């Protein structure tokens, strides 16, 4: 068996844009580690003869025809916005 999986809690928190206290880091690290350990159990199975699957259901080609439906009124769409201006969502300036 491979070595015990270990989660890099700082990286995970950073990727999720969540600030964690030291106590939280410790708590979540061990929780996530145990989840990883559980998933790792699956590696014990021999899956050599099983085809990889992208989806638990074996259904394919679920689609709709190219027809339009009523939109959400702009006012409704903006209803939950903490801040809005000119019918747009106001967000902090972050230039990507």
């Amino acid at each position: 068996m491979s070595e015990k999986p270990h989660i890099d809690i700082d990286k995970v928190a950073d990727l999720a844009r969540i600030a964690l206290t030291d106590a939280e880091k410790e708590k979540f690290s061990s929780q996530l580690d145990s989840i990883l350990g559980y998933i790792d159990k699956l590696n014990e199975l021999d899956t050599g003869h099983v085809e990889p699957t992208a989806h638990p259901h074996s259904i394919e080609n679920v689609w709709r025809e190219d027809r339009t439906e009523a939109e959400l009124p702009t006012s409704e769409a903006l209803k939950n916005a903490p801040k809005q201006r000119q019918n747009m969502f106001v967000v902090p300036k972050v230039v990507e």
Partner: protein
Amino acid sequence: MEYEAVIGLEVHVQIKTESKIFSGSRAGYGYEPNELVDPVVMGLPGSLPVMNKAALDGIIKAGLALNCDIPDTCKWDRKNYFYPDSPNNYQITQYDQPICDGGFVEIELEGETRAVMGEHRKVALTRIHLENDVGKLNHFSEDSLVDYNRAFTPLMEIVSEPDMHSGEEAFAFLTAIRQTMIYCGVSDCDMEKGQMRADANISVRPVGQKELGAKIELKNLNSITGVKNGIEYEIKRQTQELKKGRTITQATWRWDADQGRTELMREKEDAHDYRYFPDPDLMPVRIDDEWRNWIRAEIPELPFDKQRRFMDEYALPYTITSVLVPDRVLSDFFETAAKQAPQSAQALGNYVTNDLLRELSESSQSLADCRITPDHLLSLVAAVEKGTITKQIAKDVFVEMFNSGELAEAVIDRKGLKPDFDEDQVKVWCQEAIDENPRPIEDFKSGNEKALNALLGQVMKKSRGKANPQAVNPMLRSLLS
């Protein structure tokens, strides 16, 4: 030391559909902010995406037209990131199983002059995949405003291999993709409307070196000319840096078209970790031969093939084909006429590319709105060939046809352009011209063929331009012999 540039392009092209890629909101440009949104587009809890079949058809068509393999299956993945352009905090895209594999784009480089066809070559593609477009941010000094109208428009990403070496090749690559997409009706590729966007990866290395140099990603290339200029500037900049003995570090730069230079955007790529995983909301897609084949049958003759055929079948000069072919409607218009009078194809091509385009542009009309049909062109060419009117008068008749919608004969009758004299009258004018101009006759008799033109001009003048030079010429000769 000599250096060479290696360039790869990532081209985003919106697929022209009525509704969005995963929901029924309209897809379009020029609407009021946040008018084209619905719960899926806004990423509201409980909403679920459903594939738009037309977006799949569109990318398969694009892929087949660009010589890609279309594998039997593809699937959807989530690309996770935080940025306000995506309210879901992920983009639905295709990570390891794109819908189109490989392929190539045939490009044409500039010829020696505009009258000469340039060299053609193939630029290899890596893949084309489908994803949802994202919202648009408008940056202000204190904050940014987000409009999600563009979000979830079907978007394909065409990824080239690092297979180009100059701004000119990148320009030709984008032009070829644009024309192919327009021909196929997959996209209008209007860069001003964001329907086609390009990022370039550019590196420079000493000639002969196998490994690629450090990669600079160039963004904000907002027009096809911008792509060319931005890349050329960046190649020059990197080459100069290397020649000074400096090293290039991987970074993202942006092209500033107003200043005509590139500037650093961000130095270190924060080793993007998008944590791709299969999207559980969407089912994989299986594509069989029946599907591939009906789409293949929908693909029209592609621009370069049409151009070669026009030069071959109708003996059109390159210059005429290079005006006709980029416009599918115009070239079809030409061909409708040319099929009925293949022997006059060049004349027809000239009327279309000179007279028709000039009148359209002067009157700001489109071909579809104007009154000229292929039959108008055919009637004009026939009148010239029969000798009813001269080529010179035909130019005026064309303008009349364009304005009134009459066929050539009707214009000729109405304006009295038909010769109102017979052959004997022409003979009289010829004799008069000979009698009145002893000097040119001397010249002609002593072997100066061009001297005949002076006499011809006199006869044309006497006939008020209506005589047919092709008939006058031999008549003068026989009178002089």
